[in-house]
């Protein structure tokens, strides 16, 4: 069965980030032989004075294909993991969404989009989770991380929100590479210009300092821009990707 796992608000200003914990949890799932995990995506929530986030208010989500009989074990492990690994003073939340048979996908997506626009109380998150039958739990502090954890699954479900965690180290003899080679070496599934045009597999791209992909149309998408001076494609800068 396919599930989404999302965590939020696990860190404090001096601790490891939530993204690192999400990757550790994904690795745990694979190490236990419960299933295989997809790369982690980062989803930005609303930044507002009434929200007690640490410094950026982002949630981290990944998909996993698991043996259905292991869901209970996996959920118990994830809960214990958050209790053990979350930083002191944090307000961690955990959401696990079984996608097979989930009929209220639209409600979850609407909630995710809403969390980027307005302040939401955690009671609203719990009410939705109960109604649609997904796991939502808090593991310390005020527990407000449940809002981002639930919202993060909705945003991942849109297929059009967030950046993938980490950056790619692409082996190449120069700083130039083709989309085909990028897709061979990484989890990138498509290379597109900022205007949405898909690059031909044999076009030339000049690699920037940090090469990162975003979630677009449900795919790990590498965005590039046309450099008129060099008449070439370049991978997008962090500045360009911060809106994703």
């Amino acid at each position, binding site marked *: 069965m396919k599930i989404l796992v999302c965590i939020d608000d696990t860190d404090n*200003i*001096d601790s*490891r*980030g939530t*993204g*690192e914990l999400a990757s550790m949890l994904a690795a745990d799932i694979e190490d236990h032989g419960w299933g295989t995990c997809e790369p982690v995506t*980062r989803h930005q929530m609303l*930044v*507002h*004075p009434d929200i007690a*986030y*640490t*410094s*950026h*208010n*982002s949630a981290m989500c990944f998909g996993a294909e698991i043996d259905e009989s292991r869901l209970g074990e996996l959920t118990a492990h994830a809960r214990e993991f958050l209790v053990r690994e979350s930083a002191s003073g944090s307000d961690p939340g955990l959401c696990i969404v079984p996608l097979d048979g989930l009929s209220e996908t639209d409600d979850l997506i609407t909630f995710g989009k809403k969390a980027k626009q307005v302040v939401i109380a955690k009671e609203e998150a719990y009410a939705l989770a109960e109604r649609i039958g997904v796991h939502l739990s808090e593991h310390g502090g005020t527990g407000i991380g449940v809002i981002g954890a639930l919202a993060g699954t909705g945003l991942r479900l849109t297929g059009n929100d967030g*950046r993938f*965690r*980490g*950056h790619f180290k692409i082996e190449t003899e120069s700083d130039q590479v083709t989309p085909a080679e990028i897709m061979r070496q990484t989890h990138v599934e498509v290379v597109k210009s900022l205007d949405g045009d898909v690059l031909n597999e044999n076009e030339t791209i000049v690699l*920037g*300092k*940090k090469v990162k992909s975003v979630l677009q149309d449900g795919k790990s998408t590498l965005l590039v821009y046309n450099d008129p001076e060099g008449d070439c494609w370049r991978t997008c*800068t*962090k*500045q360009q990707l*911060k809106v994703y």
Partner: protein
Amino acid sequence: MLWKTNKNGNKEFLGGQESRHLAERAALECDMFVADDEDECVSDEPRSCYNCRYRRWTATAFECLKT
């Protein structure tokens, strides 16, 4: 002047969220700069207040938590 004291009593950056050069300059002048997780960095210049672990984003700019 790069900073003001906001209503929470915290130091808030006056350059907003798009003043790349000012954020780089502020970080160069700061002894407390520590790079945040790579996933939370938004400037291509590594040493920038926009990439600092101790910045807390606000709706229009960020607060420095090492005030």
